[in-house]
């Protein structure tokens, strides 16, 4: 019975809500949430327009019938809500056996339907708050799909409208109470501060327990010869071009990078732009591997990979490349392609599983994954990688002795050994240099580190280097020339030095993780993040990445630390002088304003303050219990000259304040001037504590008093001063 009673009480009709502002604010919040769903493609535009129109119509209907909602509307709303739930359940069960990749879309549909249905029966304030909460659910579903900062407009708009709704709700609940601007600003500052504090403290969200992995086809075109590398498509719907090396003259490839092709010309560095190429949601930062090269001709790298294809549908199980070992650390990454890219499927090293929006993908025997379609804007795919977590000591032990040909009881196949130690010609100088640098290094790992340390100490990074002359060897030019180059030249030099030491190594190109965005929880990979590094083969551990260009290891990001760093950068970029001038100006304005506010408003107050100041200077401050006349009398007594200056002044003040007698303007000025000039003189000590008033002042005040007295007649407008 208690439960029934509670249910009955909860369902009791509430007082109708008459506030139009509250209803408008709620409706606007709901409309913004619908707009956000459209922007994040969780709601079709036509559906959204229909939903928005119905919500507005429903709110108008609810307002019109708020006093006496028709009985049938509640029945209709209940039936429609049940229908929406049935639809959601059926849709969910239909996809449950296959691939639950669009739960968010279904949820958005459900929340949207409930919002629309509910908007026709929103008579009370509590119902409006329910609408606001449902719009929050819609926003959450849209936010789950948001990968860039454009969503901030919707988030800010919805947050502002929600705050407006809540404030209007309070105004309505308190019988039309007024909320001060200062109070609202304080509340806004409080909300922002709390949200920022929570944002800084909370760790980044992890999607380790998610049940669906995203894969969605974007706007990329088809590829002429599937399985081969293609250039970036010219635009949506346009067929991708066959792969070809870029030229330094312009942005011929993705953001101007010349790699991601069948050949990598190390003599040239493209003019890289800052275009966002893709955004990556990952459990940890990694180098996003695009492809590897094994064949070096002195100026360019080539790939002799053997492509194979897998016909099974998504998710694809990526075979382990020959000689490689899956790492022990699982890393799940979702890539959101932001601009047209080559048909390379980027991933963290050692991809093991791939969720991709096609039925076929192509694998190279080196681990390179190639898409059968061009990857245009909007493409989403997810990769699971087994990243190596080998510690330096383990690599030292693995590569100890005679270069470690033994691999888990076997050996690296001779063909691969030859392939990854291939050199176009003898590099006697390079070999001598490498041997000299690694003379004291007993293991492969130590030799690599010794070479990296030497390069860090003896070479310099610059993209502003002239192209190499035709026929020149990149490594010879770099190591024995000015030792200034970019990542392709630095990594190639390391690779060649290692190969002269008979260590299997390959050149790898891809992207560095890119800056971490603490709001979207995504790594934003720009074209300028294109990078080249080397992978060295270790027995028992497979290919291990080494980046001689940036040997500093990357740390896992923390949203708070990253945001604080960004704030620090932003603060450092603030122009100091204008800000200081502005702050000083604002402070001055505040000080002037306060001074103006504290200024006496009437001449009588001014005179009163002058009297008190003169008394204070004479060492006789006014007591709280004293009237101004009593005080002035005492000051006259201290002066002892019998002029009664202060008493007369006090009389004028009291006459004005309590008797409403205002002296003529001329007298008033004279009184003020005299009050300014007057000082208290101590007659007993014979010393001047203040200056006695002007001689005429006593007569002036007396004359004024005379005019104000009933017999003398008061001052009337128009009378001569």
């Amino acid at each position, binding site marked *: 019975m208690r439960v029934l009673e509670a249910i009955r009480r909860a369902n009791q009709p509430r007082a109708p809500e008459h506030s139009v502002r509250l209803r408008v604010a709620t409706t606007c919040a709901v409309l913004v949430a619908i707009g956000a769903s459209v922007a994040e493609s969780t709601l079709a535009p036509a559906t959204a327009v229909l939903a928005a129109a119905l919500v507005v119509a429903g709110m108008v209907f609810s307002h019109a019938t708020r006093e006496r909602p028709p009985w049938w509307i509640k029945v209709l709303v209940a039936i429609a809500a049940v229908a929406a739930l049935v639809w959601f359940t059926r849709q969910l069960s239909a996809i449950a056996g296959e691939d639950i990749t669009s739960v968010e879309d279904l949820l958005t549909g459900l929340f949207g339907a409930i919002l629309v249905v509910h908007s026709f029966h929103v008579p009370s304030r509590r119902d409006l708050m329910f609408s606001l909460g449902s719009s929050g659910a819609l926003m959450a579903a849209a936010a*789950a799909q948001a990968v860039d900062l454009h*969503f901030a407009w919707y988030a800010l708009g919805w*947050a502002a409208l929600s705050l407006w709704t*809540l404030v209007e709700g*309070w105004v309505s609940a308190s019988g039309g109470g007024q909320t001060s601007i200062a109070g609202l600003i304080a509340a806004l500052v409080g909300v922002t501060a709390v949200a920022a504090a929570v944002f800084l403290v909370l760790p*980044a*969200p992890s*999607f380790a327990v998610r049940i669906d992995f995203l894969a969605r086809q974007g706007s990329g075109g088809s590829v002429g010869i599937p399985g081969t590398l293609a250039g970036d498509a010219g635009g949506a719907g346009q067929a991708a071009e066959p792969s070809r090396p870029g030229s330094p003259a312009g942005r011929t490839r993705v953001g101007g990078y010349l790699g991601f092709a069948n050949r990598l010309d190390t003599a040239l560095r493209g003019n890289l732009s800052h275009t966002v190429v893709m955004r990556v949601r990952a459990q940890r930062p990694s180098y996003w591997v695009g492809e590897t090269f094994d064949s070096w001709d002195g100026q360019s790298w080539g790939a002799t990979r053997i492509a194979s294809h897998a016909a099974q549908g998504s998710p694809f199980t990526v075979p382990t490349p020959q000689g490689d070992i899956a790492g022990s650390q699982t890393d799940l990454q979702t890539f959101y392609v932001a601009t047209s890219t080559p048909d390379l499927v980027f991933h963290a090293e050692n991809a093991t599983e791939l969720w991709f929006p096609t039925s076929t993908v192509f694998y190279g025997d080196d681990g390179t994954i190639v898409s059968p379609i061009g990857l245009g804007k909007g493409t989403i795919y997810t990769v699971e990688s087994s990243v190596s977590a080998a510690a330096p000591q383990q690599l030292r032990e693995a590569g100890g002795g005679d270069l470690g040909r033994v691999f888990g009881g076997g050996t690296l196949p001779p063909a691969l050994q030859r392939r990854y130690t291939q050199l176009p010609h003898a590099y006697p100088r390079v070999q001598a240099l490498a041997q000299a640098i690694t003379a004291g290094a007993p293991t492969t790992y130590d030799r690599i580190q010794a070479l990296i340390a030497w390069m860090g100490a003896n070479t310099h990074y610059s993209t502003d280097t002239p192209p190499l002359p035709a026929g020149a060897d990149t490594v010879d030019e770099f190591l024995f020339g000015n030792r200034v180059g970019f990542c392709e030249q630095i990594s190639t030099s390391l690779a060649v030095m290692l190969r002269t030491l008979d260590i299997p190594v390959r050149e790898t190109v891809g992207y560095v993780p890119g800056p971490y965005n603490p709001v979207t929880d*995504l790594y934003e990979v720009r074209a300028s993040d294109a990078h080249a590094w080397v992978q060295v083969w270790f027995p028992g551990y497979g290919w291990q990445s080494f980046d001689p260009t940036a040997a500093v290891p990357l740390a896992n990001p923390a949203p708070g630390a990253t945001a604080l760093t960004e704030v620090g950068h932003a603060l450092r970029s603030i122009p100091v002088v204008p800000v200081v001038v502005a702050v000083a100006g604002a402070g001055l304005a505040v000080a002037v304003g306060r001074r103006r506010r504290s200024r006496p408003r009437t001449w009588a107050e001014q005179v009163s303050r002058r009297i008190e100041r003169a008394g204070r200077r004479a060492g006789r401050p006014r007591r709280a219990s004293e009237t101004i006349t009593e005080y002035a009398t005492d000051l006259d007594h201290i002066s002892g000259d019998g002029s009664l200056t202060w008493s007369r002044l006090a009389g004028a003040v009291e006459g004005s304040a309590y008797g409403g007698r205002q002296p003529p303007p001329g007298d008033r000025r004279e009184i003020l001037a005299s009050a300014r000039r007057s000082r208290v003189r101590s007659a007993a000590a014979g010393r001047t504590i203040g200056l006695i008033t002007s001689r005429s002042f006593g007569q002036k005040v007396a004359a004024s008093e005379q005019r104000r007295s009933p017999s003398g007649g008061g001052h009337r407008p128009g009378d001569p001063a």
Partner: protein
Amino acid sequence: MTLRVHPARPLAPIFVAAAIVGTWWVVAHNSGSGWVQALGDVVFGVLFIGIVGPSLVLARAKIHLAAAPLDGTAGLTLDLTIRASTRLRVSPADPPGPEAFIGPTRRRGAGEERVTVLPDQRGVHHFVTLRVATAAPFGLQWWAHRVRVGLPAPLHVAPRRGQPEPLPRWVHEQLGESVQRVPTDSGEPRGVRPYRSGDDRRHVNWAATAHAAELMLRELEEPAAEPVRLTVVLPLDPEQGERVAERALGTVVVLLERGAAVILATTESSGPVVASVADRRGAGRRLARAVSQPGASAGAGIAMSR
């Protein structure tokens, strides 16, 4: 005196807020989306300020009692004029009264509002205790506390007018209602009457005679009645004391209405007070201040004497 600020209904809004934030957190972690988490942080900020903020608003709120009546009667409403710095829900606790909203409104800005109190017992109030609450700025959580606001002057709440005590015969006689006053040769003037044979000629009123055109005589009567002394001893039990006070007021009012001079003897916190009362308000004030004496239960009640 201000008592501690506390949530008015602590459980429901806080649990709902915790559920919302928890759900949001689960969604953020299942989706892995930073935007969900960022938006959830804003939602948390709104809920936090919405739940905690009213306590700060309430702590900073200022209430000023601008005007209050000096006298009241138990069971009858009184209006207090109150000015508040922010919009507040006010429930008078002592004396009790219905809930009302005070403070600035959007339409007319800041101003004074009337709060009605309904004292249910006699007494003297130097303060009113109000239970003030607010949910500003978002209306999510009500916070309340009790404030004691000093009255500009003590408020005397008189008892209800109860059934009067039966008046003794001598009182009726004194009041001249059961026995005709006896005309006498000396005493207070009563009026004039035509001359009858045997009347003292010194009592002839010549002015009335001239006016009436017959011989008129001044008539005298006995002196006016002696004051009635009403001794009120309140018992220790407050309820019984209230009833005695009500009857006492009813008796005093009846006596005053019949023209009797009344001397009221009561015990106040400062000690016994014996003084005449001229009107109902004075009697109400005296009875409002009256307290019971220790050990008075035995002789509690109302006694009338000459």
